[in-house]
Structure formats: C-alpha cells, structure tokens
C-alpha cells in the first residue's frame, strides 16, 4: 500500500471537518504536492493531472447520492467459517480492519437518489481488507439487490477489490455464483444494473458481478482485470503493453461502455437511470 493510500484510508475515517487545513499529500501520479483539503474538495482527483485517488465507501456514497440517503446495515454472516490463520488469525484481521471503520465489511449499500432518481447504491471499499469478496460482501450484494427489487429501482455498484477473500477459501469463490443468482433476479424484475469499475477491480469480483452490468462504466486510469499483472508477467515473461488493464485499455477493447471522470459521475448515472427506467414484468 502506498503512502498516499495509507493517508487516504486514515482520512476517510474522520469527518471532513476534522481534516487539518495544513496537511498535504503527494500525488501518486504526477508527484505534485497538494493540500489534502484541495484534493478532497476536488473529489480526491488531482487538480493538476486528473489522477483519480482511491476513496472509501463513506466518501464515495457522499459524493454520489443526493443528501438524505440512508445506509443499509451490513448483513450478518458466519464469521471465520474455516478458522483460518496465516501469520495472524482471520478474526484478528477483521477486528483490525473494523477499528475506526464506519461499516461492517468491504461492501456497503445505501438507498437514496441521484438527481431525484431512486436507486440502491453499493460501494466496495478497497481500504477494508483490499475490498476482498467474502461471505459478507456476497451477502451485502444480495441484500442490496433484494432491496432494489422491493423498491422497484436500479442497483448501481462501485466495485473495488483485489479479488476473493482468501481467508474464507472456497466460500469466497462461491460468492461468484451467489451474486450472479441475485443479478438474474434483478434482471427478471425488469430493473437496471449499472457497474462503476474503480481502481482496482481484479480477480473473482471482475469475473462475476463486476462484468455483468447492463452498462459498464470505468473511472479513468482504474486497474481492471482478471489475472494480476505479476502472474501474467510470470506466465509470458515479456513486458506488458502500455496501459494494460487500465480503464482506457478496456474501453478500447470493447469491455466497458464509457470511461467517466469522477466529476461527471453523478450526472452520467442520473441520465442512465432515466433512460433505463424499470419496466413492468409478469412476475
């Protein structure tokens, strides 16, 4: 984790009001020294080079939804089903991740509106155990979709994940079909599903719900892929192409509909939700 992400993650745990005005960070892309406040006021995008910084769930929800949204509770799941331990016990890793974290796990849902259009918004947070998909993420995804079906509105998800949560072994892998089952139900209910791919989205998340959107949006520069770059490099033993697995590269290869700057995200989602209005279904 870079120094910038570390600062960002610790910042997302405090409210904006508490951020000292004199704290500065160095842009991860262009190296420019920026005041944290200026950076945050600019949606955590570098004003100099447009680098899109990684943001937590709380900040992302606040950026996207109209005021007055409500956060849905994180569903309870069996914790540490495998009694997994590597150098640390999994419950200890969870406890550390939850310390000063406002929500229960890496995926948080909110129900609200964007420019008056109703939706359920799910946001994955790379700051919580790398956004990794375990049972809690799968359960939250299903709960978000069930809520959207009840509310008769679309589900929008902002993805961010290094992949599956290894500490849950096969049960994390089973979230791939599980989330896909939920998506089938959303589609059967005539409701739209929009994916916003943010930096980074890789592994089992990409190979399931992150690639099944009716419309696929990516943030500029976001790393998006199935296999990790190191694994690919070990396989092919040659230099990876420029911009490989970046949002623009995926757009060029037909894998996403559009690459959208963070400042235009609200408007884009509002327009999409207006075009893809719920249709009446037999069920």
């Amino acid at each position, binding site marked *: 984790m870079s120094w910038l992400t570390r600062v960002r993650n610790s910042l997302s745990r405090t409210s904006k009001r508490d951020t000292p005005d004199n704290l500065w960070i160095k842009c991860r892309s262009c190296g420019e020294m920026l005041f944290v406040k200026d950076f945050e006021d600019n949606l955590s995008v570098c004003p100099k080079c447009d680098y899109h910084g990684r943001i937590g769930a709380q900040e992302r929800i606040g950026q996207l939804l109209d005021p007055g949204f409500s956060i849905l509770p994180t569903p*309870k*799941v*069996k914790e540490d*089903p*495998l009694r*997994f*331990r*590597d*150098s640390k016990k999994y419950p200890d890793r969870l406890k550390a991740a939850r310390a000063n974290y406002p929500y229960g796990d890496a995926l948080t849902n909110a129900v609200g509106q964007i420019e008056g259009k109703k939706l359920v918004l799910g946001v994955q947070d790379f700051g919580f155990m790398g956004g990794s998909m375990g*049972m809690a993420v*799968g359960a939250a995804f*299903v709960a978000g979709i069930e809520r959207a079906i009840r509310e008769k509105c679309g589900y929008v998800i902002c993805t961010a994940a290094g992949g*599956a949560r*290894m500490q*849950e*072994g*096969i*049960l*994390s*892998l*089973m979230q*791939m*079909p*599980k989330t*896909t*089952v*939920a*998506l*089938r*139900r959303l589609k059967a209910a005539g409701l739209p599903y929009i994916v916003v791919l943010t930096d980074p989205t890789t*592994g*089992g998340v*990409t*190979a*399931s*719900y*992150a*690639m*099944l959107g009716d419309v696929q949006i990516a943030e500029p520069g976001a790393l998006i*892929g*199935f*296999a*990790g770059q190191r*694994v*690919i490099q070990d*396989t*092919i033993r040659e230099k*990876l*192409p420029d911009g*490989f*697995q970046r949002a623009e590269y995926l757009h060029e*290869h*037909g*894998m996403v509909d559009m690459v959208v700057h963070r400042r235009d995200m609200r408007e884009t989602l509002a327009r999409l939700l207006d075009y893809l209005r719920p249709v009446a279904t037999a069920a």
Partner: protein
Amino acid sequence: MISYLEFEKPIAALEARIHELRSTADTGGLDLMSEIQKLETKSEQLLARTYASLTPWQKTQVARHPQRPHLRDYLAHIFTDFMPLGGDRLYGEDAAIVGGMARLGDRRVMVIGHEKGHDTQTRIKHNFGMGKPEGYRKAVRLMELAGRFGLPVVTLVDTSGAFPGVEAEERGQAEAIARATEACLSLPVPMVATIVGEGGSGGAVALASAERVLMLEHAVYSVISPEGCASILWRTGERAADAAAAMRVTAQDLLQLNVIDRIVPEPMGGAHRDPAAASQALGAAISEEIDALSGVPAKDLLHRREERFLAIGNL
C-alpha cells in the same frame, strides 16, 4: 509405468522390489511366490494406509498427477458417440475447453470440460487445461444449445485456473467467465458438474455452477492455488502445504461445508492407477444424478440451483 509422487517413495520401493522378485522368479524358476505375496500384501496395506490419510497438499499433488485420467479418458470410458463442437463464433477455437453432444447410456447429453493433455505435445495443444475467453464463450454456446434441445449438461472440471495472459485479458477473460457462470445458472435442463482433478478458481466455477456438484475422492477445489495463497499470505510459495490445509481444498472438507453434494470414490491409490475403474464409478454416479433430475420442471431446476448457491455459508 506409474510415476510416483514424493510421498509415495516407500510404496515405490516395495513395488520395485516385487517387480524385481517376479523377474527373478520368471527367469530362474525359483519359487519366490510366498515372498512375493507377503510383499504384495504389505505394499497394498501401505498404499491403503497412505491414501486413507492424505494431507490436503498430498491430495493436491494426486489431483495434478501427470497420469491422472483427464477429459479424454472419461469421454472414452463413460460416454459413447461423442460429437465435439468447436468455436465461439466470435474469435476462435480453444482446445483447453472441449465440448459436444454424447450419449450416456441411452441418454443424450451435452458434455463440457477442461482438457489438460497427457504428453508435451497435447499439453501445449490444450494449453494445460487453462481456458481462454473463447473457450468459456464456446461453453456458453453449447449450454444454450443444450437448453434449447433439452439435453442435460454434464461438466467435468479440471483446471489450475483460467489462462492468465495478455490476449486473454484483452478479449475479456473476466467477462467470459462471468457469462459462463450466468449461463450455468440459467439452464432450463439438469446440470451435473464434477471436479475430477483440479478445480482452480473462477475458471472452474464457470463450468461448475450446477445444482449437483460432485467431486472425485482426491480432487481439490479452491479459490486460489495453495502456492498462490502461500505467496500472498505467507510471502513464500513454500508454505503451500499450510495454505492447502488452511483453505480446506479437499472433497471431504467441501462436502462438510455444503459446497459439494457427493464424493465419488477413486480406485485404491488414486484414479491414475485404474482409469477404467475410476471412469466406471464416475459414470455411474453421473447417471444416477441425472436420472434423479430428469422430469423435474425447468422452473424448479432453476430454483434449486439458485437456492443452492444462495444458501452456501448461511448462518
């Protein structure tokens, strides 16, 4: 000739000794029968003992055994009149994933599976069983065809994972896997999946999201390879044995976790010691499963499949 795994060294020594005594007996006319029989009993007991208590890492090695039967063997032993179908109609033909119509007894089915190859030439041809997007898209095509014509879908999963390469990423590996998983979950016909060797991550799930999931006795199924898990969590691939144990990759563990529904026993000493017997047991199990599902209305099949995956890991 069987090739022996590291942990089978004592078995290898005994079997070599038996072989030696037999040739001595043959050429010299000596009566070594009682000695040979004694050693054979000993060797069989050792084999049985070893295979009854394989560690998860040892099972991983058995699942990857170079002589383990692969799709080709199962197609030859279990099914008749196999008609392979090729291509995804979008980009190409991927030999890592093989599929087509076949007969299972009297029944017409669609068989789809990973093929790893059995020697250098065929391993390269089949890309070691690592599917590319076109392979998964071909699988989607075949599943849709099976759905339209009422053929139950039988999948045989055996892959270390989907191919991690530049061209696979370029052509949408993630999307292809996601769509294949979705296609499994949308089938209006019975689907029975079996992990026959390695069930490696998303590349396996894409062909295994069925209402009945079987596993051969010594197959493994996991979210990441033990080596990969160890190199991330322990920072060294050398802790692979620990990672295999911690992740619970064996059929016996996965049955307990309700991730799979049934274990198909392998011949003593692993499927590679008797591919025909392994195939026979697998064929019988698949037939039983399909019989049990035949006549179930499409709506109920879909519902069962959905509930199966929604329920995994529930409180």
